């Protein structure tokens, strides 16, 4: 059995909401007075759950609350969650940038964090000097850097510019240089936060490959935070899903991605959702989404949808503006979060209700024998006058397509390609066979 190298226990972090002003001075004094008397922090009791959409009721919020997990040696743990779920706070705590309010983190070996590439690089210094500077900031000794110097330059691919000040570099080149230094870091635990989002495709591939090597060959542990489900999937074996500052799921990566993308669904029926006007995610001053659903034509919501079923996707919304044309667009993504297609009602030439307000229903029929047996995710966009986007709801809907003639719940297999349309194939013999 592999050794546990990172252990997180009851980890919580309290943040203050709002600005620092005169109020905080009195809070500081109160807190100090409480500590002098040996009492508990008077403000820790009142923190509210970290839900960014709800109204601020108290001055303090728990960015993280009572989180426990362990990571074994050589494991690549993905951390996923929506914006503001506490991912970055968690990484900051583990990389010792800020300290927890409660709980503890225990680790074996050096921890190095890559929350940003090229931290501390100075624009006036040359690339060579910056490699040494950045390496030192990351905790490498001069000797270590010197021994890997040639490899670093080669990885970054900027031998030509070695003695050029960094300020003359393009932003992409700076990232390459920064990542190259970090890639040759040899900590026991490496923490990576979406730094791969920059840089060209070739470099991203290189970077992901390097991270895989680090964990497999070197037996090092990697904690990886990303919104890009395909890189999480290709890199991680296990993932945790953070929601409102708490771990909602901890386990196999595909299952975790599934949980993340279907967050907030009720009763396991993902194919139909209703929304109230209070939900700020699905309504604003222009439009309010009432419901969205997908089903096989001739069946009910929640019944299995097969490859050979024609699908009907219905969006019901309330239009709050008169004299504008509102259109809905759907984007469909595959299991890994890759975009597959987009289609919108903008293709309707005459829409006669543009002057009125009220409830509108858009329906789109998706052809049969088009999707493969897999899971799909829908983004919904509402456009005004076919130009401006008024509302965007990511992952509003999730649906599964089953192979032909399979009852609900039986299909467990994985597909290789998300789309398998039945195009028109013909054949003709072009050669005389003997």
């Amino acid at each position, binding site marked *: 059995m592999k050794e546990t190298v990172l252990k997180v226990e009851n980890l919580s972090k309290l943040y*203050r909401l709002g600005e620092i002003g005169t109020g905080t001075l009195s809070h500081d004094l109160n807190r100090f007075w409480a500590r002098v008397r040996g009492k508990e922090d008077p403000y820790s009791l009142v923190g509210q759950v970290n839900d960014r959409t709800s109204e601020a009721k108290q001055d303090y919020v728990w960015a993280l609350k009572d989180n426990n997990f362990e990571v074994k040696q050589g494991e690549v743990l993905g951390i996923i969650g929506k914006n503001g779920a506490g991912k970055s706070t968690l990484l900051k705590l583990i*990389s010792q*940038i800020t300290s927890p309010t409660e709980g503890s983190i225990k*680790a074996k070996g050096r921890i190095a*964090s890559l929350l940003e590439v090229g*931290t*501390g690089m100075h624009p*006036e210094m040359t690339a060579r000097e910056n490699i040494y500077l950045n390496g030192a900031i990351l905790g490498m000794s001069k000797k270590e850097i010197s021994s890997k110097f040639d490899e670093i330059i080669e990885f970054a691919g900027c031998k030509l510019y070695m003695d050029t000040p960094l300020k003359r570099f393009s932003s992409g080149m700076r990232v390459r240089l920064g990542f190259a230094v970090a890639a040759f870091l040899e900590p026991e635990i490496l923490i990576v936060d979406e730094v791969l989002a920059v840089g060209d495709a070739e470099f991203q591939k290189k970077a992901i490959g390097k991270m895989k090597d680090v964990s497999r060959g070197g037996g090092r542990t990697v904690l990886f935070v990303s919104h890009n489900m395909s890189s999480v999937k290709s890199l991680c074996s296990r993932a945790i899903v953070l929601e409102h500052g708490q771990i909602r799921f901890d386990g196999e990566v595909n299952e975790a991605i599934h949980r993340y993308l279907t967050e907030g669904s009720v009763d396991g029926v993902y194919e139909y959702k209703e929304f109230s006007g209070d939900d700020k995610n699905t309504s604003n001053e222009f439009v309010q989404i009432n419901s969205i659903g997908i089903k096989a034509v001739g069946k009910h919501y929640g019944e299995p949808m097969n490859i050979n079923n024609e699908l009907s996707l219905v969006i019901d919304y309330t239009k709050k503006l008169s004299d504008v044309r509102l259109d809905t667009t759907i984007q469909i993504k595959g299991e890994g979060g890759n975009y597959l297609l987009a289609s919108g009602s903008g293709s309707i030439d005459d829409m006669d209700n543009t002057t009125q307000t009220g409830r509108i229903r858009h329906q789109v029929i998706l052809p049969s024998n088009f999707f493969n047996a897999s899971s799909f995710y829908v983004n919904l966009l509402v456009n005004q006058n076919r130009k401006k986007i008024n509302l965007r709801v990511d992952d509003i809907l999730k649906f599964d397509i089953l192979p032909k003639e399979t009852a609900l719940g039986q299909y467990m297999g994985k597909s290789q390609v998300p789309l398998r349309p039945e195009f028109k194939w013909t054949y003709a013999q072009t050669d005389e066979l003997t």
Partner: protein
Amino acid sequence: MENVKCIFENKNMGKGLNKIESWDVVIKPKSSWFKLNLRELIRYYDLLVMFIKRDIVTVYKQTVLGPLWYFIQPILTTAVYILVFGKIAGMSTDGLPKPVFYLCGIIIWNYFSECFIKTSDTFLTNQNIFGKIYFPRLIVPISKVVSGLIKFCIQFILFLGFYLYYMFQEGYSYGPTWYLVLLPVLLVLMGMVGLGFGLLFTSLTSKYRDFKFLIQFGVQLVMYASPIIYPLGSLEDGSTLKTVISLNPLSHIIEYFKYAFLGKAEIIDWGIWYSGLFTILVLFIGIIVFNRTEKNFVDTI
């Protein structure tokens, strides 16, 4: 019955203790009051060197005169002091050549103010780096003190030039004294008192920016409360003014420094001990406050 149970539990606890694994890093909400992890600081020695190099190399990049600015600034300041305090106000320089007298005070004062001002905005200027990566935060202020010392050494060469030039001029008689052996002690004290105050102020500024304004004119005020532009001996003995200025721990370091080179200054025997104790106290408090601040300053800055 209960006793038996207790023993049983204790046995289990004993086993548990044996199993407790050794962790290299333990992150907890609270730590001891005074934590100076010297081993960690030594491990990051290379980073210290890189920071010092960065400070020295990058300051005058893309300037025509480059490192000459290290000389120009004290020369111009000296010229202004000669004009304003020497000529217009007619203040005494203890019978010493004006350029030597003022320059002597200016370089030691510059060293202090460099150490203090540069370390006092550690958190503000480094919040980007500190917010992204961990290394012992104390490395940054220490590097500022060392680069301050290097800057002092460069300006010291300038001082030596004037010092030797006027020594062989007619009408002046001054020279070094045995107090010169105290020079390293004086420089360490000056740097450490600057560091101590700097650590204290950077911690305060990280949450309350009010202190930033205080620092700006505070340094100016303290300079006038130190014997830089006047000899301590020129003040009337027993006057309140003299008492106040003698209570300024910087005064003694400056007077000892002047005495070591010029042989003319008012040095008090307990002065250096007073300054030394004060320095240790300020540095101690500074490190405590700095340690407490560095843990969470990212959230409040």
